[in-house]
């Protein structure tokens, strides 16, 4: 008898929990995403999990989203795709067809976004993704994909602008890139820019994703006496590249990497050897970037670090921008109808902690990249849209002269 009454009490309690706690809110707007929580890219995937949840909590805390006269809260339905593209596509299909989520947020990385955007297009549910920068994602005239990472083809744009003003002037460039969607787009965009800047492309080498040995490439860089090395790859490869450059005493005048440099983890793993490395970011946590929900980017960065224990980088800010773009578009549309929200996204324009959010006709944002450099134990902004911000440490000294 006691058992039964205990069970009944439990059932009542469960019913009480599942009942809407606040009568003023209409049905939740559910955002679905499949993100790398385990597997080789889990390290970056966590930015998206944390950013999505953080943004949703913040928006809900300030009253949710107004659609007409009703307020809706946001909810997140998140799957772990185990860093597997095929699983990710299946999970997005499930999110749309079985979980019936209202809108989609993206995965991390271009090869994932490239495959997953086919799902949003097929089911005509808008996906706003902040993890894929490859131009290929937006070259297919898809109507339901929007991206908040700046185009891959322009990642090295500001770096090349900076190179023109350096002294002694760099003469030869090596471009190394991994064979995946993002890095190939970076390389394709970089070649014409180098040509315009009259920089000789002395090495143009593609390598396998997840390569661990760069000794051959580094020995060639040394033997050809190359001034500038531009690497488009993944964080693991770039860690190996820097370590092996040191162990082979290869020190070009400068090197720059598409990923890694902005993240705290990268600098921790390399320690002093991270010094002098150039990179780029479309986002720095400046108080000048005002935000409707978070105040500004500076406050956001502090709150994020306090909650998750690590510094946000542009991946995190881009993830927050995705949620905000959807929230803003739903309010502008005054509806949660996918087609209407899609049209509102195409026209959206607002200031956020990530910068000014607006999508060009192909669905991608256009933000300039700021050149950054590790200087000592600090990350310094070097060159932005308006030219030089701080003096770069150039040329890089030999490894035994540090």
């Amino acid at each position: 008898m006691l058992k039964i009454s205990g069970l009944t009490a439990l059932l009542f309690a469960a019913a009480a929990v599942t009942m809407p706690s606040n009568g003023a809110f209409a049905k939740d707007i559910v955002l679905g995403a499949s993100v790398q929580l385990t597997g080789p890219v889990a390290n970056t995937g966590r930015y998206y999990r944390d950013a999505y949840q953080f943004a949703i909590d913040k928006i809900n805390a300030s009253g949710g989203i107004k659609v007409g006269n009703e307020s809706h809260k946001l909810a997140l339905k998140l799957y772990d795709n185990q860093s597997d593209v095929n699983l990710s596509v299946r999970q997005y299909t499930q999110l749309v067809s079985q979980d019936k989520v209202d809108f989609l947020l993206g995965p991390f990385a271009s090869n994932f976004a490239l495959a997953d955007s086919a799902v949003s297009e097929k089911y005509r549910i808008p996906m706003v993704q902040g993890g894929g920068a490859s131009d290929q994602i937006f070259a297919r005239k898809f109507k339901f994909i929007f991206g908040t990472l700046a185009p891959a083809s322009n990642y090295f744009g500001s770096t090349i602008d900076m190179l023109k003003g350096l002294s002694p002037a760099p003469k030869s460039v090596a471009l190394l890139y991994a064979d995946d969607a993002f890095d190939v787009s970076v390389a394709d965009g970089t070649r014409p820019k180098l040509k315009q800047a009259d920089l000789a492309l002395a090495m143009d080498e593609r390598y396998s994703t997840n390569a661990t040995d760069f000794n051959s490439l580094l020995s060639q860089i040394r033997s050809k006496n190359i001034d500038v090395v531009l690497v488009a790859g993944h964080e693991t490869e770039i860690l190996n590249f820097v370590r092996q450059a040191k162990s082979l005493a290869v020190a070009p005048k400068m090197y720059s990497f598409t990923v890694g440099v902005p993240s705290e983890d990268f600098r921790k793993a390399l320690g002093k050897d991270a010094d002098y490395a150039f990179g780029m970011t479309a986002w720095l946590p400046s108080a000048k970037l005002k935000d409707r929900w978070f105040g500004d980017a500076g406050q956001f960065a502090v709150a994020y670090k306090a909650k998750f224990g690590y510094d946000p980088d542009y991946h995190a800010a881009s993830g927050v921008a995705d949620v905000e773009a959807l929230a803003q578009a739903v309010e502008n549309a005054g509806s949660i109808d996918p087609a209407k929200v899609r049209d509102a996204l195409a026209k959206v324009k607002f200031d956020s902690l990530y910068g000014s959010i607006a999508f060009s006709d192909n669905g991608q944002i256009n933000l300039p990249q700021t050149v950054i450099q590790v200087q000592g134990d600090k990350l310094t902004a070097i060159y932005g849209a308006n030219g030089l911000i701080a003096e770069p440490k150039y040329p890089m000294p030999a490894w035994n002269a540090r």
Partner: protein
Amino acid sequence: MDLLAQILINGILLGGLYAVMALGLALVWGVLNIVNLAHGAFIMLGAYVSWYLYTYAGVDPFLGLPITAMVMFVIGYAVQRGLLNLIVRAPMFNTLLITFGLEVVLTYLAQLAFSADFRTINPSYAGNSIQWGPIVLPVARLLAFGVAIALTVAMWLLLLHTRLGRAIRATAQNLVAARLYGVEPRHLYAVTFGIGIALAGTAGGLYGTVSQINPYIGAALTAKSFAISIIGGLDNPLGVIVGGLFLGILESLTSLYVGSTFADVASFGVLVLVLMVRPNGLLGKAA
């Protein structure tokens, strides 16, 4: 010419590292007839043991290798006695399944325990190099190469000239006869597996000083060790070092002359060729 010499040196040093990685796999495969698909995961665990020793106890990664090896030996012994011994007489397919499962479990446990953050074992001398005319010799790789040669020779001596080694080889050749001579196979299998895992752990410690560590490095290292074992042959440890060097040099030359994307194509292409032409390995007895 200088470039070619440098590339050859790079290849030889890389090959030494490859050889240590494969040594344990080849031993376990040769004696226990288990293709240990979790081999790379054990290399990864060894790398983390070395990383913890270095980061939290300040133990030099090279001097700490014996500790890493001992820790890994104990883990290996326990895994064989508790788990793999259950299927030691089962068909090959079952051993593949169970070691594959073990690989998945170890990898995900590692992410829970160590997070997906990238680690490096980075003592001050790890990035140093010796200038030798136009050639640069990286100190860490040179040390790793030295350890590789030393371990291979030690393994060879152990197998040929000690009682334990003879017992291991006898068990591999004829279990019934070995038992008649007083070999206790259960203990011996566990010791052999323990040695194999200790070698994997040592390889992991070396790997952490030249590369980066994360819970997911294992699968690719298993594949590489597998190729080296096939190319070198399972008969004796010297074959493994030949296989490692061969693969290291081949990959380096391929990156130089054909392109980096083809390094894996070349190494696994050679694997197929060896299987066709000399299925017992380059140093193995002709088929």
